[in-house]
């Protein structure tokens, strides 16, 4: 191989690499990560597919503007350290986003190579560099000079962690308050081990601690501490408490034994380790699991049910395949693992047996009508199409909403009609010095958007402190 830069023609001749995976048969019975990661040679070869476009369309597809061609160019040159430095500067949790971003709708959707053939595998390369950096580079260290300002962050999901990291880098004294017993938010309790190993969340968290961020778990803001109390101790506050309120179907039989919200089902498995032999928290298992929903959460729940031993793990969605909001890769993986997809169905009633356990669900077939507010065609019921489907476990994964626990105790915080916190262009709420971002502002969104909010808010908080506050020293 010559050291001369490749010509466009040579680059175009390279085919997209394949991500090595655990075989579907095997992985459908374990909780280890599905994707095994690219080998260095494959990553370098893939990076060479990048045409280093001058107008960088891929960067516009990334909500945090990762300098994609720049880091790909470094990989192609075999300079992984250089690639890692660019990536780490732009993205606080690259090992996570490389795994969970919906790349096919973001960076890779805009990649010029996708117009004719397959886009550059930006997500896989991001993951590759992040994993390499975590193994080979020293964790970031705390800045030498401190500003003397104290900032509290509420919630340790991707939004809170990103803000905390940025603020610590700027020399502020940051404390994160987390309601649960372990940090990470949805990365910890929602997204399963087979998609995002918890060791990665642990590593991202310890990198932040190396920056001087303090994380205090078991603090429920609104209960243990109020926002008003926080403002007495801290100079500013960033609220990123997520959208952790489960939505139920509101059909009869929903309180039968064996019916779970996705939040409960996934929390028992991921946060509490119900799948591990040593885990103490129980989870009900059954031969037939039916999951309602079509997003990432539904996909995670149905694939979890399969791994917990269900012989039939069925995803029932009220719209069609094309309307499913889940990541494309998850849909593909689920299909390979033998997940059954049933489209255009809505639950009418959950039926129980004599001891109060789920036995079946009565469903109605739907057809797609005119587009609704979201632009997707609205499902409408087909009369007379009702039928019964046997089920032992039911998981409801039809969305989440803003959890009112914090906001209810802070009446000065202006909310919209869905209970989400309203912010101005700088990310500040109706309370001076209190900023917010992530799912509590957007409703259920994505990891990278929450991180983007954390980053923007950190910059605004920094400005706010310097302009409005006197350091406590």
């Amino acid at each position: 191989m010559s050291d001369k830069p490749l010509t466009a023609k040579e680059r175009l001749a390279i085919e997209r690499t394949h991500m090595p995976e655990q075989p579907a048969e095997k992985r459908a019975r374990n909780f280890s990560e599905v994707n095994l990661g690219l080998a260095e040679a494959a990553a370098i070869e893939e990076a060479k597919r990048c045409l280093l476009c001058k107008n960088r369309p891929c960067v516009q597809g990334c909500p945090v503007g990762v300098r994609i061609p720049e880091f790909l160019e470094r990989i192609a040159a075999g300079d992984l350290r250089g690639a890692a430095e660019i990536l780490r500067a732009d993205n606080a949790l690259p090992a996570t986003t490389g795994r969970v971003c919906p790349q096919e709708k973001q960076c890779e959707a805009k990649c010029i190579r996708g117009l004719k053939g397959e886009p550059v595998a930006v997500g896989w390369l991001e993951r590759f560099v992040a994993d390499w950096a975590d193994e080979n580079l020293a964790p970031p260290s705390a800045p030498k000079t401190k500003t003397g300002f104290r900032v509290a962050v509420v919630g340790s999901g991707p939004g809170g962690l990103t803000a905390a990291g940025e603020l610590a880098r700027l020399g502020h004294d940051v404390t994160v308050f987390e309601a649960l017993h372990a940090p990470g938010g949805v990365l910890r309790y929602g997204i399963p081990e087979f998609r995002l190993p918890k060791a990665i969340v642990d590593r991202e968290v310890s990198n932040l601690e190396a920056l001087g961020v303090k994380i205090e778990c078991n603090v429920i803001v609104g209960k243990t501490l109020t926002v008003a109390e926080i403002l007495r101790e801290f100079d500013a506050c960033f609220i990123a408490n997520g959208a952790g309120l489960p939505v139920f179907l509101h059909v009869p039989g929903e309180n039968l034994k064996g019916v779970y919200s996705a939040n409960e089902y996934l929390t028992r498995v991921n946060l509490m380790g119900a799948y591990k032999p040593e885990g103490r928290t129980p989870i009900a298992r059954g031969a037939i699991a039916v999951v309602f929903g079509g997003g990432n959460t539904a996909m995670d729940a149905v694939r979890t049910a399969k791994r917990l031993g269900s012989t039939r793990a069925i995803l029932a969605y009220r719209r069609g395949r094309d309307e499913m909001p889940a990541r494309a890769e998850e849909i593909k993986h689920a299909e390979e693992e033998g997940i059954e997809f049933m489209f255009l169905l809505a639950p009418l009633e959950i039926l129980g047996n004599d001891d109060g356990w789920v036995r079946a669900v009565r469903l109605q077939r739907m057809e797609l009508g005119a587009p609704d507010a979201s632009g997707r065609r609205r499902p409408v019921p087909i009369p007379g199409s009702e039928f019964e489907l046997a089920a032992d476990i039911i998981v409801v994964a039809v969305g989440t909403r803003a959890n009112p626990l914090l906001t209810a105790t802070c009446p000065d915080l202006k909310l919209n009609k869905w209970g989400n916190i309203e912010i101005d262009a700088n990310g500040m709420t109706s309370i001076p010095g209190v900023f917010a971002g992530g799912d509590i502002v957007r409703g259920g969104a994505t990891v990278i958007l929450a991180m983007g909010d954390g980053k923007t808010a950190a910059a605004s908080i920094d400005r706010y402190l310097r302009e409005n506050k006197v350091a406590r020293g």
Partner: protein
Amino acid sequence: MFEVLRNETLAPQVHRMVVRAPRVAKARQPGQFVIVRLGEEHERIPLTIADADAQAGTITLIIQAVGQGTKDIVATPAGGHLRDVAGPLGKATEIEKFGKVVCVGGGVGTAVLFPLAKALAEAGNDVVTLIGGRSASYVILRDELASFSREVLVTTEDGSLGVKGFVTAVLGEILADASRRPAAVYAVGPVPMMAAIAKQTRPYGVKTIVSLNPIMVDGTGMCGGCRVTVGGEIKFACVDGPEFDGHEVDFAELAARQGTYKEDYCRLDAQLARGKGKEGRP
């Protein structure tokens, strides 16, 4: 880590533990609870804050060891640690001035009742406390309750202390007597006891507050596992409760859901053996 400062046995399998948890101690109000997790891989166990000392930064828990989770917690000696104590959770008791109030505690429910009864008495109510246990050694907190109750009545199933029988028999007499009939009843104990009491008070129109203990995970309204039907609506006991109007609660559903992990909840092996997994396959 939360240090255990004291651990003493109140009754067979019932321990009183004092734990250092300064933030909880400061914020706590009667009726609220904490979620305790002893160590890695342990369950999250909801426990009522029986008492708190904001000055000393301590809370008191009264715990009945019923299953593995609670057995492990009460086995932690003074000087040992609980990995996680999160709270205070749940709504505080709405303390009203009713006048005459009867507080009924069954078994370890008496521990949950204790802070409510105390707060009711402090608010100037005339509190009669009625507590039941299997036998004399299971009756807890009698002296503590006596310190602020006008009267403490005791029932035991074997008659070894107080009246022989159930608390419902004594409550029935109180309700039937117009001169003793309270304006409100607070009942905390096993679900069948609370259901029976709600049924008893309904014909008299006596306001009845019960404290529910469904299975919980997070305690913050995130999982919905603690959902109960109250007045035909879904409520999350951890955030909307744990206290509810006993006349509105669907106790049968609560009892069923509480049993989720008591029975054969891993029905998979049995089903597969019966070949159910193949049923209905397209």
